[in-house]
């Protein structure tokens, strides 16, 4: 049974109801796949729908793949955040998994790096290896075309956090591309 919801306009209500009907099941199972717990999966799903409700005007047709892509990215992010929170007790421990990848070289910004077309596969592989907290804002910006303010709202972060994470995600990609792309990359210098 669809819960009764109250929105400002009938169109908003209808859009949210449609999203809930179409996405809730897949979102729940995806969250549960990550969290291995029904209650935590419900919490993550709730947070994902809350984010969706707050950004309804930014989302296109519910039926289109792009909107579903957005929802999946949000569910993944909320589930991973919940997993981290749940794993930690009162004292936060920074274990090896959470240690940030340290660049061994002082890579220049992406703007200074040459990229050739045959690097596309390498770029795909590199993005796949990004940790979720870096991948999610990057995907929302580049796949969904969201502004950093919109991403901050969707992920419950500050705009500066989003900005820093996207910048760092791109900084991480370049050395990975060099490793995987080999001679396909060159670096410009002054």
């Amino acid at each position, binding site marked *: 049974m669809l*819960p009764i919801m109250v929105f400002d306009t009938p169109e908003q209500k209808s859009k949210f109801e449609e999203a809930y009907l179409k996405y809730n*099941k897949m979102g729940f*199972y995806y969250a549960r796949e990550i969290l291995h717990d029904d209650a935590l999966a419900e919490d993550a799903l709730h947070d994902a*729908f809350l984010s969706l409700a707050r950004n309804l005007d930014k989302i296109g047709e519910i039926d289109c793949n792009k909107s579903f*892509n957005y929802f999946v990215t949000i569910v993944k992010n909320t589930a991973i955040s919940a997993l981290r929170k749940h794993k930690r007790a009162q004292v936060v421990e920074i274990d090896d998994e959470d240690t940030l990848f340290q660049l061994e070289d002082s890579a220049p910004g*992406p703007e200074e790096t040459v990229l050739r077309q045959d690097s596309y596969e390498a*770029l795909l592989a590199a*993005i796949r290896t990004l940790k979720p907290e870096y991948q999610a804002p990057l995907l929302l910006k*580049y796949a969904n075309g969201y502004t950093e303010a919109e991403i901050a709202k969707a992920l419950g972060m500050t705009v500066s956090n989003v900005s820093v994470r996207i*910048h760092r995600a791109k900084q991480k990609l370049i050395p990975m591309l060099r490793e995987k792309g080999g001679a396909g990359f060159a670096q410009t210098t002054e």
Partner: protein
Amino acid sequence: MHRPQNNSAADFEALLARAAGQIAAEQAAEVRKKYEAAPGPEYSQAFLASIEEIGRDAERQKRLLFWNRVAKRAAMILIVVITALTAALSVKGVRAQLYEYFVTHNDEYTQVQVTAADEKVRGRMISEGDYHYEPSFVPRGFVLRERKEEYDFFYHLEYVDEKAYAEFEQRRQALIEKWGTEDAIPEEERIYYNGPFLMFEEQRSVEGVVAFDTEDAVYKELELDGSPAYLTLKNGRATLIWDNGDRAFMLFGHLTEEEILKMARSVARVED
């Protein structure tokens, strides 16, 4: 140095957009493939109620000015992060070592915008390293309740009044016993800790805007550790922001002026 002809930041951005689109689509397609035909889950009543609440909450949230860390303590809001300036009465900029503070005084509040002094690093991490700062002085009666590090950006300590928190925990446990689980507690019966608290926060990527409620409050601009410090006192609560040339800090909670300054001066570096 030779510049190859097919390079550009725009090329990278375009490729990134294409790759990100493909990855997002792949992840969503995988979810759809796995779960589209799955049976509908049996949701708990608490979850269904929470979805219903979203509709009522959505518009309310849009109108709230909130800072996500403080929003849960709505009754104690002193600090509000805002993203748009309203009409200002006066603006003053003060340059400090690593941080710049722009102070705007309005009728009911004073806004302090903290930003990196070096324009080139604005929006980026200012201070990195395997260490954090924390106060060694904590007023009597307060105990540490939560220590949280949000990736690299914030280091956050929350203290509560030991006695008040113990009483709150007793009432909360009684409710959990009554309803079985915390999630099963109906909203109208839920309780939240509203007793005395203190929060210390260290920020490593500073692009924040802090607004002090200065209506009928004491507001002071001081110096601490060689940097400007901004203090406000109202209704038994104090708020202080400052930096030490490495990272920026904020303290707020049920403190007197003397206590908050003593706590701030006791902040020292701790290796992780």
